[in-house]
């Protein structure tokens, strides 16, 4: 299955339509989006006695999608993301993975995947509309690539586990990644991983086919829309009252009821408070020589 074809974050597009046109509710947003993507190019979408041509609407929805992902300026968003990734790498490799560490990791992966989908769809809309500004397109593409790289870094250098010990070897592998992210942060928004770094870290997305000149964005949008429609038809949304879920949770046996688990959790929590000379040396080097890697 291709990237995004599970349609996990498709509802984000409905949110973007609602944000771009506040007078539209979710149900109408579905209809409008479907028409926008699947209708012929000369088709106009009509609602509230107003006609919009496809390009106009795509442009407005692309803006709304970008607004869903950019918190403050792009520079601020980049700094927040890189700080978040560095913290996830650090917390997931500092001796013990607590439940909170795993939640932090998974929350970031989920947020990054949703944002990546939003930005990619905005990029697709802009490609179809024929966005004139190459700078805007370059920035969008760069942000998509960065989100893919960040997700790869976390998947490659952290374990998808909770309440587990981390080996010294894993810590040693993660240490230079944390240091590199901190250096990158100090170099600012325009700087990116070098090709050599991307290759050695196995996070290279510069040549992804769906970001290349030959990619058919209109076909991709149609395909993704049809997959979503299939999903909505085969899995009608059933509202489950909250109390049913609560009851199910309460009858499950507790996973944390044995002494060994509790003591392991206790150790994990306190292990994060130990002084680590390797960490000190790494931090000292990264604060003293922020440009070292960039100068190579």
């Amino acid at each position, binding site marked *: 299955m291709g990237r995004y074809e599970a349609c996990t974050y498709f509802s984000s597009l409905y949110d973007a339509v609602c944000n771009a046109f506040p007078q539209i509710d979710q149900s109408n947003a579905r209809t409008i989006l479907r028409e926008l993507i699947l209708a012929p190019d000369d088709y106009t979408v009509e609602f509230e006695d107003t006609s919009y041509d496809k390009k106009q609407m795509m442009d407005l929805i692309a803006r709304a999608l970008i607004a869903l992902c950019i918190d403050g300026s792009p520079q601020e968003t980049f700094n927040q993301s890189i700080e978040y990734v560095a913290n996830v790498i650090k917390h997931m490799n500092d001796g013990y993975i607590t439940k909170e560490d795993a939640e932090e990791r998974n929350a970031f992966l989920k947020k990054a995947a949703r944002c990546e989908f939003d930005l990619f769809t905005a990029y697709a809309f802009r490609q179809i509309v024929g966005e004139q500004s190459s700078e805007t397109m370059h920035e969008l593409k760069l942000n998509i690539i960065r989100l893919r790289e960040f997700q790869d870094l976390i998947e490659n250098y952290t374990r998808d586990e909770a309440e587990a010990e981390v080996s010294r070897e894993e810590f040693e592998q993660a240490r230079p990644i944390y240091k590199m992210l901190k250096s990158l942060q100090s170099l600012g928004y325009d700087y990116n991983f070098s090709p050599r770094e991307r290759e050695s870290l196995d996070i290279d997305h510069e040549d992804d086919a769906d970001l290349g000149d030959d990619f058919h964005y209109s076909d991709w949008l149609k395909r993704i829309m049809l997959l979503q429609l299939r999903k909505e038809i085969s899995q009608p949304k059933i509202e489950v009252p909250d109390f049913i879920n609560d009851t199910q949770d309460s009858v499950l046996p507790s996973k944390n009821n044995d002494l060994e688990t509790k003591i392991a959790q206790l150790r994990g929590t*306190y292990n*994060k408070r*130990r*002084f*680590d*000379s390797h*960490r*000190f*040396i790494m931090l000292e080097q990264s604060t003293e020589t922020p440009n070292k890697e960039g100068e190579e």
Partner: protein
Amino acid sequence: MSDISNIIPSYLSKASNEEKEIFFQVLIHLSATDGHTDESEIEFIKEAAESQGLKDIDKLFTHTDEAEILKKVKIIKNRHLALELIKEMCMLSHVDNLLSDEETLFIGKVGIALGIEMEKIEQISNWIIDRIIWLEQAKYIFEEK
């Protein structure tokens, strides 16, 4: 200042006033490295400084420049007192949920200024954390938690 005085003697009471002042200034600076200062920590440090016979305690809170503190801490030449300072730093910093980057950096830098080996700082930190874990385990083992 801590409940281990029966095992390890405190050298702070025998230190000069200048040494005592920088001893507490280091702790005050450490308590503020993570961006916020806990009132109970400050009260604790103030009381401990007073119990050591220091006057004008508020003055200690005005000198917070890290470079100046790292320079001044070198007046502590007694290794026992230096180890005691590292121990108190490790105890103070364990209060938060994790040892922050800023705290790690400051403890390491003070250690270097005092001529204490990194391995020794780790030993002290591990000893403190192991002891806390041991005490906390009791609550589970004796089913108090």
